[in-house]
């Protein structure tokens, strides 16, 4: 931190001493020789997740946005960790790729030891929380929200959420970003009306939520993947789309 350990005693005449005191406490990441994450560059938008009686369903679109530009339209934001765990990444895509690399290394290590021990969803969730919280504590966050979906060792469905600041919890339905405002209420109402939702019903719900998100989220794309974890294993669908009706947009009023 150059500001803290500066040996310069030179105080410019036209600088108020109050500002110099403020400088002392400023930890400016830009003046550091070591770079810290300042802002996300290529980003993914909402990831949704629902826990069902026979498994867990997650969904995310395949867009990597470059600010407001819909730049990379074939990006996979759901990744299979092993037969019990899927993760979905929201936020900076480079940081998500880093996380995926770390998780792949875990799988390789387990395969190399070859004793049959594997990580279940709560273990991955816990590990993810440790990593993200540790990074935030060093003021160099992985700019992601990760949804961890899968099964426990005893086969129970599990759905967890971890934030770039290390906030971590489990719930029956989770969503990141815009999804937490638009899709989460839809998912919660659907679960209230049908507490014993099956994966097939949840997939229909996901498609509906993603359609609404495409209407309302400026950083969304009408091309998405749905991932499912059941007792048979883990699979991520091919990219899908929903039918949308933009005719209402032909004659807007009040937005001129």
């Amino acid at each position, binding site marked *: 931190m150059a500001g803290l350990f500066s040996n310069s005693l030179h105080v410019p005449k036209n600088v108020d001493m109050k500002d110099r005191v403020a400088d002392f406490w400023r930890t400016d990441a830009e003046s550091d020789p070591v770079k810290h994450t300042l802002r996300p560059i290529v980003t993914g938008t909402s990831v949704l997740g629902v826990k069902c009686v026979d498994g867990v369903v997650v969904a995310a679109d395949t867009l990597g946005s470059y600010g407001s530009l819909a730049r990379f339209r074939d990006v996979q934001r759901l990744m299979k960790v092993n037969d019990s765990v899927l993760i979905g990444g929201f936020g900076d895509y480079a940081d998500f790729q880093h996380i995926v690399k770390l998780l792949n290394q875990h799988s390789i290590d387990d395969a190399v*030891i070859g*004793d*049959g*021990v594997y*990580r*279940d969803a*709560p*273990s991955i*969730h*816990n*590990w993810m929380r*440790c990593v993200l919280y540790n990074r935030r504590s060093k003021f160099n966050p992985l700019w992601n929200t990760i949804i961890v979906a899968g099964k426990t*060792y005893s086969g129970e469905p599990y759905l967890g959420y971890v934030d770039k600041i290390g906030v971590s919890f489990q719930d029956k339905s989770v969503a990141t970003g815009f999804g937490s405002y638009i899709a989460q209420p839809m998912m919660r109402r659907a679960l209230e009306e049908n507490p014993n939702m099956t994966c097939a019903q949840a997939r229909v719900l996901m498609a509906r939520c993603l359609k609404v998100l495409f209407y309302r989220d400026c950083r969304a794309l009408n091309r998405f993947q749905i991932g499912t974890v059941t007792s048979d294993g883990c699979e991520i669908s091919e990219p899908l789309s929903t039918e949308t009706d933009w005719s209402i947009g032909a004659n807007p009023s009040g937005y001129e």
Partner: protein
Amino acid sequence: RRVRGQTFQHYFKQINLSSGAMYRNQYDNDVSVWSPQGRIHQIEYAMEAVKQGAATLGIKGKNYAVVVALKRASSDLSSHQKKIIPIDEHAGISIAGLTSDARILSRFMRTECLNHRYVYGSPLSISRLVSSVGDKAQTGTQIMGRRPYGVGLMVAGCDETGPHIYYICPSSNFYECKCMAIGSRSQSARTYLERHKDEFKNVEDLNELVAHALRALRDCLPNDSELTTKNVSVGYVGRDCTFTVKDDDEVADYLKSIEEEKASGGAAPDAGEEAMETQ
């Protein structure tokens, strides 16, 4: 550097000594020296330390893993040496050999288990725990100037794959066992265990498993001694029960249950000097 110089001096001194004067072998000064027969004597000497320690044994049943130990008192004035050390809720060890080395290894095992629980939120599987101890112990068997840990660890633990008994040797080898006995006079215990080893996997009741273990332990006693609440320690862990150590009055009930039976009275006719196959 200093250590290296001393070792070489020692070596040269030996060559000049007349045969049989001070050392059994020319090749036993350092653990980094092979003998022409392909043995590392320092490691074998370390394994002797286990044979000097008081007996301890472990048995794996269907739902539980049990360790029992004979506690020795160094004098009538001192207390009996604790031999069973809890490691985590799902694992514990019983030791034979250098107690101080055992403390270091048990501290290492505890931090491994704790770190795993912190990061992954679940207990460390016993096979991974044991192999991490083995990896740590191996460095002492290969680096010049160091020595192997002079303690045998009988690990009892329970994870998703069920109860386990592992034996970690001073050579840093580790063995998964159905049952195993180590320490002084443990050959008789191994004989008992060998006779019954195929029964253990069907034993569902904890008390029955402990009774088997105590019967085997009884055969390790020196003459005119018997199992008492002072010199016996029992530890057990199961799928639905955390690692528990029973000492003193708490073992009285277990001892009572085997009291009425006769001691098995020494080695079985076919027991030779060969090492027992434990897997």
